[in-house]
């Protein structure tokens, strides 16, 4: 089966500053992959390159087996209907109501009538546990947690196979971020999604991801399960996972993960 995402020999440069140096990453269907790394390690840049928003200096990015950077616009449009993106700040269109935000991608298809779109929007609101009475509010009247949920509903509007989450729990209180993680978990199993997550939050990372890609030294230093990731002796890994906060998050997952501290 063709992998959902294939990044090969990717180089990113901002002026003289090299962010990625010959980076490789493959994501298979149905996997939940988290990208972690220190600030400036190019997590978000890598995600933007996977989305075709930025052009790498060298190398190729293939999504659904189609190269992103030299496909014609028609092919790209087809790919873009098959993925959903949750931006960090939600990126809801501030001029449109919640309803119109979610309805926009559906209307854009021009295949369904208004009644159908209405039912679909209500269904998506149910899926992300937002009350229907909020449908006619404007994004500026909503709390951060609600904006994230509605942005997720919008990302799911076209029934994507692949979904990108940029810091899905950043800016949410612990309670809300936990329920958001649960929401993503349940949707992921129900809809059989492939998920790429960029995150700093250890709890999100531990509870959601099947695989972790650690970005450091301009490449992916580890790509594997949490168990595999934490056994690597790299200063970033040691600081991130085996620091005080990291150990706390790991111990919450239980015995299944053996820490070999030395």
């Amino acid at each position, binding site marked *: 089966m063709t992998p959902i995402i294939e990044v090969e020999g990717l180089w990113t440069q901002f002026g003289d500053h090299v962010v990625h140096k010959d980076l490789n990453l493959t994501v298979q269907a149905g996997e939940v992959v988290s990208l972690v790394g220190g600030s400036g390690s190019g997590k978000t840049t890598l995600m933007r390159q996977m989305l075709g928003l930025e052009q790498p200096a060298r190398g190729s990015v293939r999504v659904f087996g189609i190269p992103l950077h030299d496909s014609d616009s028609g092919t790209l449009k087809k790919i873009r209907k098959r993925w959903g993106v949750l931006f960090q700040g939600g990126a809801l269109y501030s001029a449109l109501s919640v309803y119109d935000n979610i309805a926009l991608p559906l209307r854009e298809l021009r295949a369904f009538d208004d009644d159908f779109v209405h039912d679909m929007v209500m269904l*998506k609101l149910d899926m992300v546990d937002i009350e229907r009475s909020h449908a006619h509010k404007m994004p500026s009247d909503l709390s951060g947690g609600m904006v994230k949920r509605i942005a997720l509903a919008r990302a799911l509007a076209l029934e994507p196979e692949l979904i990108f989450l940029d810091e899905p729990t950043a800016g949410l209180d612990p309670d809300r971020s936990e329920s958001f993680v649960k929401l993503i978990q349940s949707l992921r199993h129900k809809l059989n999604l492939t998920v790429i997550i960029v995150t700093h939050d250890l709890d999100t990372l531990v509870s959601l991801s099947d695989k972790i890609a650690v970005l450091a030294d301009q490449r992916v230093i580890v790509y594997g399960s949490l168990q595999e990731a934490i056994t690597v002796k790299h200063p970033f890994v040691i600081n991130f996972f085996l620091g005080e906060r990291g150990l706390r998050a790991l111990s919450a997952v239980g015995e299944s993960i053996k820490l070999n501290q030395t």
Partner: protein
Amino acid sequence: MPQAPTAPVQHPEVHEIRGADGACTVELTGAWDIRALEARARNLQLRLSEAARAGVRWDLSRVQRMDHIGALLIWRAWARRRPTQLAFAPGIEVFFDKFDAPGVGAQAQSAADMLALVRMLGARMLRGLDHAAGMVQLLGQVLIDSMALLRRPARGPWREISANLYRVGAQAMGVTALVGMLIGIVLSYLSSEQLKAVGANALIVNILGIGIIRELGPVITAVLVAGRSGSSITAQLGVMRVTEELDALSVMGIPHTVRLILPKIIALAIALPLLILWTSGIALVGGSIAASHELGISMHSFLSSLPVAVPTINLWLGLGKGVVFGALIALTACHYGLRVQPNTESLGIGTTNSVVTSITVVIIADAIFAVMFADVGISLQ
């Protein structure tokens, strides 16, 4: 999404099969997901509603793929109720779960407002008054702040003023020069045609001198600056509102009237008269070129007869207008910038309103000047 890994994915189809016992079975096959439905939704909707009759058996066991879009399409054909005889393929039932909850399809429609027109008119008038009050308030705040500044001039926002002066003044010289030159040439050309007919060639100096220095120079420059700098001021303050930078200033105890608004007002009040001088000068040069071409009045004699034809008070009047117009444009632009709501649409509307209002305000102010100084500097000598 359950799918046989070997069988190729087929288009969604609706089959009606009449069984041996006379019972009708509707069988759905193929992929009922968004990718397949996108192009066929209307057609399938029709087929489904034709097939949906009371008492038919629904067989969904050969559906290869399903998602919420497909499920909703089928659910609507079922008139939002599960049929009694129903078979699912493994794993697709989950897409129908959410529909069983009550309320899918409940439409919320607001009643039509009979008095909408009256309401709109009233709201508009109130909004206009509100803007006027807001602008007066802003002006008051700026005056109070500048009083405080006069007491301690060292703490003034001099750096901001100089930066603004460069942006609204020096950088606008190109476009104002071009427009001034063209206006001068056109005005001179048209006037000389008329003057030639009555043989009053020498009056071209009076017409261009009074017209440009007193009226056209200030107004044209103000309109250009309102479009150029007014919009950018509104957009800048508006974006600062959207990104909460204004709030960040407030909580640091830095009043934005001093740091942001006062420098803009001062900079425009200084820059606009200078730009007017520059534009009027260029326009006069353009006018004299056209005059020498059309009427044979040399540039030297044009410029030397200018001080005689145009009393110096007109120049001061033009510069005075510049100070007032500049302050008005900056005040209007800042007012609309601060009123921007944190959303993108409001930013666009605010910028448009700012430019339209500042141009209107400039022209109104110009009319007031014209009435006030009706007997100053235009008596023919």
